[in-house]
């Protein structure tokens, strides 16, 4: 096979891994709390700034900065739930979405005020690795592995812990679970924190690949939502698979055409999927 195409395919898989984490986080929150966090990519942005600030400004070791980023963004997720989402739980869905859209502006504005609109780079780069006849960026490969580990950890949490079981149950039927002695308010809080933590993990993986600026969320936020919808909102496995599909579309589109047009192709593909399978690619 053409080594360049092979490289594009490989990069697509790696990109899919990066998309997968925010998609899982959004799907978790939506599946459990039934609210779309329009500001999810901005939570990731805050995480990226956290890592950048702790590592380059405060001089912390990178691992410690990563480890701090997760609880910071998880706390932000909790705060978002308590201050904005919980009071709106019985409001119309559009009001919920617009309120989280307001948070999007708040976070972008706050980032601009604190860090200005400059592009900030972490300045960490791992040497490229040779796999057969193609070269792969070491940073991307490491991020990919970390994304898979994060997804596996989430799966294990949902599958093998009591809280995880309760989360899955409440996503299945939110009327009956309270009757079984599960406090939905507590489960919502936990899901929001875990959703935030996943955004934090995604931030750690993105900050090594992208420069941070207040509007960086707009570069991957829209496609994250589309992947969620393509996989079926709330469907974790569907979202996970759709992330890789979208990664492949974007990177092979970049191979055939150019990066910008590859996003046009990806978005058009999304619109077509919604027309043909409105409940997602993997809906029964």
């Amino acid at each position: 096979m053409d080594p360049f195409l092979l490289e594009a395919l490989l990069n697509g898989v790696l990109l899919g891994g990066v998309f997968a984490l925010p998609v899982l986080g959004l799907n978790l929150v939506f599946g459990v709390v039934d609210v779309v966090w329009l500001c999810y990519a901005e939570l990731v942005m805050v995480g990226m700034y956290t890592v950048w600030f702790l590592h380059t400004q405060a001089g912390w070791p990178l691992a410690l900065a990563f480890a701090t980023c997760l609880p910071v963004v998880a706390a932000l997720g909790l705060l978002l739930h308590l201050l904005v989402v919980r009071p709106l739980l019985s409001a119309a869905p559009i009001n919920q979405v617009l309120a989280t859209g307001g948070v999007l502006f708040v976070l972008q504005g706050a980032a601009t005020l604190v860090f200005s609109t400059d592009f900030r780079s972490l300045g960490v780069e791992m040497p490229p690795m040779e796999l057969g006849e193609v070269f792969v960026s070491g940073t991307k490969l490491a991020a990919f592995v970390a994304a898979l580990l994060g997804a596996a950890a989430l799966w294990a949490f949902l599958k093998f812990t009591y809280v995880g079981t309760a989360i899955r149950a409440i996503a299945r039927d939110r009327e009956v679970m309270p009757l079984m002695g599960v406090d939905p308010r507590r489960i919502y809080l936990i899901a929001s924190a875990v959703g935030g933590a996943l955004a934090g993990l995604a931030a750690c993986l993105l900050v090594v690949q992208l420069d941070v600026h207040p509007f960086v969320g707009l570069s991957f936020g829209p496609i994250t939502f589309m992947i969620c919808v393509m996989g079926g909102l709330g469907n974790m496995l569907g979202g996970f698979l759709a992330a890789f599909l979208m990664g492949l579309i974007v990177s092979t589109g970049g191979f055939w055409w150019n990066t910008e047009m590859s996003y046009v192709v990806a978005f058009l593909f999304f619109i077509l999927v919604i027309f043909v399978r409105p409940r997602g690619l993997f809906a029964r």
Partner: protein
Amino acid sequence: MKGGVLLAVLAALATVPLLGPPDYGMHLLITALLTALAGTGWAMMGRFGLVSFGHGAFLGVAAYTTALLWNLQGVSPWIGVPLGVAAAAGAGALLGYPCFRLRVVGHYFALVTLAAGEIVRILVTALREYTGGSLGMTPDRAPPDAAFAAMQFDKAGFWWITLAAWAAGLLAWRLLDRSMSSKALMAIAEDEDAAASIGIRVTREKLKVTLISAALAGLAGALTAQYRMYLNPESLAGLGISLQIVFGAIAGGMYSPIGPTIGALITIGLEESLRVAFGTEFTGAAAFSYGILLVLFMLFLPRGIAGLLERRRPAAPASGAAEAGGAVPAAQPPG
């Protein structure tokens, strides 16, 4: 608002440039009115539960059509703007028809429009040979004697054009409200299946209101570009501007024809006062305050400022019906 009152208000507003206001004041008024027009267009469909996160796309399609026709073909904006508006309506139909036909609603509709808005933004950026990409483009200046033909005026001239466009938006709102379509759309917003079962042609009614909405947004976009003499993809397409349109309409109140205009006055006023207060840091402060306000509005005043005014007035039978139909159907309380 009664027709007579509206005409009197329009006549009063038309005399504004004759009072010799400062240029800066005129600039703010024109900008606010153009923002109001875009918001009116959005709310036209938003109030029936057709929430679009991609209205920026319609601004962009119309603005770039007008500007490219002028720069590349020398077509006067007097012809270019209507063509641009038609192109925006066409884009609305292209997006709306399959959506409505295939019953894409709610979150799904919002995300499809979001994708469409992003597509337009990226296309404008990618076609940089013609559009100047993200650096933007400027329509060519016409010589002074041809300025009128090129729709390049001073502030007063633009004020009158903008005023006419804004009034057209309100007129469209009024005509829609008095037609059977608005009743049909209210029924559709409440329950699409039930509406279809009593013989309402759901796809057709939705498409109609989408065309009007896209055309008004397109008009706002084309005139904005023509007024500023500068176009760029960030301010005329994509998620950012689309959310700003939504914010203005929601803050003002999307169920009242005057609501989006109130919202535009608030957003422009806020942006300018923050700019004066914070100087160069204004972009961050403005976005920050927008966001806080948007959250507060959603929490405490989901019907916007106009909703506040509504409640004080005793409900006439006609506005009572609008009240009932316009209310957003409440979601099932979770848990």
